[in-house]
């Protein structure tokens, strides 16, 4: 068995193009006939499409690994995913005799896979997250000998595909070198330069120059300036039989390099969308002038080169993205480990909490802390900013708040201490709105302090009224001299106390309306009988429905404290 290559991508529709290029690379290496390559491509694309839609439905995300090998007379391609396993009872057999309307419903992809491949084997895991594989095997039918003499364009195509197959971390510079040397030798020129477009500056810059060019390590040209710049601006090939007779030619380059330029052939590198992504320039045809045939050949090869350059860039971005995602996943689990392991179980009380970062990590957090005297510290906080900086600041904030509680400081002192620590320890000028309450489970009394946090909502079961409680203070981490004045309240039987961050109340719907406190109140009144955790989940569900198509823009965190009814 010979390993041919493998490709690992995010299972997303946009990556089907990369997959298709990968399959072409495999086809080129095996010199597959057009027909065999077509069959292989169709079967793999259908299989990949099924994985994208069915193994990772909706918001589910994950990887798709495609690996190819050659075994005897067969090519074997295995697609692996880590999503939902296929449920064989849900697969309807494709009915070749059904009317056309019924046929478009689905099952077509699987029918193709089975019709086009010589063998199809599937393994499904018992549960989501474990690998599922689909092994496709096809007899290798090679292109006829007559067809196998490749044109220079095909050769370049093969080279790029092979480079994609062989390694997913090919360096762009190596590829450009490979391309340029191929162009120079095919067209029989003395020298060549490959320029890429720098869109930000509206410039061309030489990415590779073939052969030792001495001090000319990098050339930068404005688009529209000089010969290469002119080709970049017009997108048309330019054949100059006498360089020194052309006013666009800059003899300075010859002076510096000691080279004598006679003839110049310059072609744009157009991507499939006909956008100029670079320019390739060949100097001095070895035998006479550049011909019309050379112009056409160089144009075609430059277009192939453009595709391979774009693909390599795509690969690199994809890999970069994978690395970033992996780091974010790690950050998420580290951050989640800062949250309390479990919600305190207190007789006569029902407590629920949820933490919903908008990205992998959040600036919100909640905390519970058992105090030495039997009271329980309840904390909610919202750190300024989002993403990684907010997550790091959250870690600092959690630590200093916990320290204050662990040495039995009263709530206002916990905030004062945290404020001082944060101001002296960090220079990033971040802050956290924070609420700290100490609940006495026996009396229902809560002593609390508030550092500029959204006032918690207090539902009084006896009257049905709703209050917002607060105490004097400002967000932690802003003013060194900040004062925090404690306050006190008593939760009566069946009362509900809701601590939340603004990610709950400031959610916008498609009309740019805020969810607001009124809707939150109404929701709580409607569900006073629900257990705390279910109420928290219901609130999150409701704001998600409210936002509908709008993406949530802020982290959302909730803590719900319910006192049991009088009879219990």
């Amino acid at each position, binding site marked *: 068995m010979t390993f041919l290559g493998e490709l690992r991508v995010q299972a997303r529709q946009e990556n089907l193009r990369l997959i*298709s290029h990968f399959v072409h690379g495999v086809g080129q290496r095996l010199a597959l006939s057009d027909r065999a390559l077509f069959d292989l491509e169709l079967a793999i694309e259908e299989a990949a499409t099924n994985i994208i839609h069915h193994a990772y439905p909706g918001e589910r995300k994950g990887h798709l690994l495609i690996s190819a090998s050659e075994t005897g007379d067969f090519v074997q391609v295995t697609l692996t995913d880590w999503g939902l396993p296929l449920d064989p009872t849900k697969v309807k057999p494709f009915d070749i*005799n059904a009317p*056309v309307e019924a046929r478009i419903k689905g099952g*077509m992809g699987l029918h193709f896979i089975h*019709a086009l491949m010589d063998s199809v084997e599937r393994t499904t895991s018992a549960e989501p997250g474990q690998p599922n594989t689909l092994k496709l095997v096809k007899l290798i039918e090679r292109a006829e000998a007559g067809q196998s003499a490749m044109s220079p364009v095909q050769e370049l195509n093969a080279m790029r595909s092979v480079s994609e197959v062989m390694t997913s971390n090919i360096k762009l510079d190596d590829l450009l070198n490979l391309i340029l040397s191929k162009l120079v030798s095919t067209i029989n020129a003395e020298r060549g330069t490959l320029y890429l477009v720098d869109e930000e500056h509206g410039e061309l810059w030489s990415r590779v120059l073939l052969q030792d060019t001495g001090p000319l390590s990098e050339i930068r040209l404005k688009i529209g300036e000089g010969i290469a710049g002119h080709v970049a601006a017009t997108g048309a090939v330019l054949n100059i039989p006498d360089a020194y007779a052309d006013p666009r030619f800059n003899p300075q380059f010859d002076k510096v390099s000691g080279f004598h330029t006679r003839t110049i052939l310059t072609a744009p590198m157009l991507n499939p969308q006909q956008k100029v992504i670079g320019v390739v320039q060949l100097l001095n045809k070895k035998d006479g002038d550049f011909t019309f045939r050379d112009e056409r050949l160089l144009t075609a090869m430059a277009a192939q080169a453009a595709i391979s350059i774009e693909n390599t860039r795509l690969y690199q971005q994809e890999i970069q993205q994978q690395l970033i995602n992996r780091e974010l996943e790690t950050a998420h689990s580290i951050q989640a480990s800062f949250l309390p392991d479990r919600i305190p179980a207190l007789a006569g009380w029902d407590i629920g909490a949820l933490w919903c970062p908008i990205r992998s990590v959040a600036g919100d957090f909640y905390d519970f802390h058992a105090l030495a005297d039997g009271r329980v510290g309840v904390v909610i906080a919202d750190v300024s900013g989002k993403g990684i900086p907010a997550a790091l600041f959250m870690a600092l904030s959690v630590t200093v708040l916990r320290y204050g509680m662990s040495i039995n400081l009263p709530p206002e002192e916990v905030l004062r201490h945290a404020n001082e620590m944060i101001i002296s320890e960090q220079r990033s000028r971040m802050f956290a709105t924070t609420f700290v309450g100490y609940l006495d489970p026996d009396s229902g009394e809560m002593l609390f302090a508030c550092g500029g946090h959204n006032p918690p909502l207090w539902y009084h079961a006896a009257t049905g009224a709703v209050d917002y409680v607060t105490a004097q203070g400002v967000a932690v981490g802003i003013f060194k001299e900040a004062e925090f004045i404690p306050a006190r309240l008593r939760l009566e039987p069946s009362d509900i106390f809701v601590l939340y961050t603004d990610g709950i109340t400031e959610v916008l719907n498609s009309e740019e309306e805020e969810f607001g406190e009124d809707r939150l109140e109404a929701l709580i009144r409607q569900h006073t009988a629900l257990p705390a955790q279910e109420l928290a989940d219901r609130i999150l569900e409701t704001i998600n429905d409210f936002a509908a198509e709008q993406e949530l823009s802020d982290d959302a965190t909730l803590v719900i404290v319910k006192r049991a009814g009088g009879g219990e």
Partner: protein
Amino acid sequence: MNITEREQDGITIFALEGRVDSEGALDLDLALQTAVSEGKHKLVLEMDRVRYINSAGLRTLADILTQVRAGQGDLKLVNLSQRVARVFQIIGFDKFFSIYATVDEAIASF
């Protein structure tokens, strides 16, 4: 993919070029649905420069076929490449679509 549209004898002809893969099927769907919503129900597709088609593309074609036939029209295909014709056969679509060798024959058949 590239799609160009023209009219001849009250029939709308689309010349297709490129790959009718999952991405191309979206372009094709947009072009054909637009025509159907403008009340054009007699459609001809020139397919000779289509190099590849997958189930997403076939689904689009079948969907449009159902719609135009409901409006007393038809969707006729011209000049399928060998590879595309084979895909039609595997899935049994050759029996549903009227396929012609030239645009003129397709137009004359309406």
